């Protein structure tokens, strides 16, 4: 299979082209996914850009992104495949009078036309290896995790009426977890591991510049410093990178180019960053002034 191998330095550079500013360790981990053909497990707090990694990876490889959001109660049917029961029923009824033999009806209703692909089956039936994102795997329950483990090692699925479907290509698998529940040791061992932290000031400024090309470099740095300061406050919900981007866009839209000069606007627009009532109340205009002063 012509799965092109991209050297590690190129991965970082290509990621940057897609607007994802990765640190060296992440670039290394992504490179190793290809070399060792192992899935990558990314942990980190909400809003640090875990899901973005998979999207960027898909762009880098020019591959399709197949996303599966996990939730409590997710079962194999909604993750793998389902027969289209309504269509099958109609097909049976419609052919009843036609005198078609039962065998041919059976063969028809258990054919591909009646099979609904769910993300996991979809991911292994592509000719070109897609990026499979299994988002928030910690939300699914243990039964599902065990099932996933089996799929990730064999990359084949057995459908009783249909036969075994082996992977046409091995997808690049990215799993993310928020740590709402401890994952099993077996799953962890199967995967490469990366812990994604909030970016430092320079990297966040770089992200701002990458995502908002028009932004002034020193202003981006100011915004990044201010957000870093906010993250150090005792907040209930720490603002993530997406919020930083929103806020910077808001400020740019309002024509602010220096935080300390327009404290009132800065304080009023903090609602892009602070998403709970308590956090809003905690960050008083004085706090804003102090943080902005330090960021300048």
């Amino acid at each position, binding site marked *: 299979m012509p799965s092109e191998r991209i050297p590690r330095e190129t991965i970082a550079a290509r990621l940057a082209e897609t607007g994802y500013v990765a640190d060296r*360790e992440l670039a290394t*981990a992504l*490179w*190793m996914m290809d070399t060792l053909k192992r899935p990558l497990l990314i942990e980190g707090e909400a809003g640090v850009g875990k899901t973005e990694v998979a999207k960027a990876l898909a762009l880098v490889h020019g591959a399709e992104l197949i996303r599966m959001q996990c939730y409590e*109660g997710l079962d194999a049917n909604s993750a793998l495949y389902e027969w289209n029961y309504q269509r099958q*029923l109609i097909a*049976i009824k419609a052919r009843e009078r036609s005198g078609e033999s039962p065998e041919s009806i059976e063969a028809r209703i258990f054919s591909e036309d009646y099979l609904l692909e769910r993300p996991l089956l979809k991911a292994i039936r592509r000719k070109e290896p897609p990026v499979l994102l299994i988002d928030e795997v910690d939300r699914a329950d243990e039964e599902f995790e065990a099932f996933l483990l089996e799929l990730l090692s064999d990359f084949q699925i057995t459908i009783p009426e249909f036969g075994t479907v082996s992977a046409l290509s091995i997808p690049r698998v990215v799993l993310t977890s928020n740590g709402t529940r401890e994952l099993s040791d077996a799953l962890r*061992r199967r995967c490469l591991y*990366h*812990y994604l932290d909030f970016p430092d000031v320079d990297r966040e400024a770089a992200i701002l510049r990458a995502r908002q090309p028009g932004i002034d470099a020193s202003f981006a740095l100011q915004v990044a410093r201010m957000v870093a300061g906010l993250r150090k406050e005792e907040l209930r919900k720490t603002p993530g990178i997406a919020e930083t981007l929103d806020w910077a866009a808001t400020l740019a839209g309002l024509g602010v180019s220096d935080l300390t000069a327009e404290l009132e606007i800065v304080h009023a627009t903090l609602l892009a960053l602070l998403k709970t009532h308590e956090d809003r109340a905690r960050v008083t205009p004085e706090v804003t002034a102090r943080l902005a002063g330090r960021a300048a």
Partner: protein
Amino acid sequence: MTSSPARPASLGQGMRWRLAGFTRTLRGAGFSVGPSETGDAARVIASPLADRPDGLRAALKALFASNRSEYERFDELFDAFWRGRGVRRAAAVTALGAANRGRRFEVGPRGAADGLAERAQAEAPGAPAAEGKGRERGASAQESLARKDFALLAAGSEREQALALAERLARAMRARVTRRERARRKGRRVDLRATLRRSVARGGQPIDLKFRRRKLKPLRIVALLDASGSMELYVPVFTRFVYALSQAFSEAEAYLFHTRLAHVSSALNERNHARALDRLSLMAQGVGGGTRIGDCLADFNRSHAKRVLRSRACVLIFSDGYDTGAPERLTAEMRALRRRCRRIVWLNPLTGREGFAPVARGMRAALPFVDLFAPAHDLESLAALERYLARL
């Protein structure tokens, strides 16, 4: 030390030895490294990535670390082993990991922020809080009993009655409803898959409908009961309570601890009620001497936690928090325990006393990791536990 090791197509003998030594070091530090990881590591070392030590470090980190604490400790171990830097610090990290065998120890400044305790402080007994809790209260004759400190109960019938109540209470606690569904004859949603299967018997007419319904999933309860001298007066009630809990929850495990940890689930499984309680109270009689909560928890974490705890487990610790061991030990073990289970409930019989503050050293060390810190000196406080468990 390692001036860019020679790297032919396959690894040389020396390099293989070094790699084996490194995986041994990692295992000693509590990483679980299997042969497949080692094999992959050899491939990484043979790749151009290994030309630069930083690249190699990042690569091996992604491969060997499998949780955050390992991720944060890895750099130090790597530098010490391959570059001979900071050997002393890394040795300390290794020693800590080894003492906690298994990947549960966490170092680093962020650790302290983990214990997001919601810590419902003790509702003062008999105070206004008693209103509107009719469901858990017994009949009025039992009411005075419900609020009487276990330590003050007269021996004989009063004590017997309280014990029986504690048992009834525990049995009444329910299993938890999960969102996972299974096919049933009645339910909220039609299960097309099962219905179609059933229609075969009716010549393809979907006459018998099958439904999906939420599955009941038992909450797993793990009780750790302090049986030291200072708890003497409470141990009989708590053993009875724990016994009944284990009958009510199909998945329950119980441990007693004072200076050592004892697994007592086998006694709980005894069918004969009286025999079970006898065996339990016999086991509880290691009484005397100090309590070593930290050491006992370490033993639990090392030898039992992996098997007994799952994400849906709730750990109940019955203890007054008087610990004769080092508080740092207790902190470390509580943190390790925190990562493994859903909730930690600490029931402290002293909390109900007037003017109580959790000043015992052990209690202070453990508090940051406790989700619910509640009193357990009378029946009413035990009944309040039901509401909490029902929410899990």
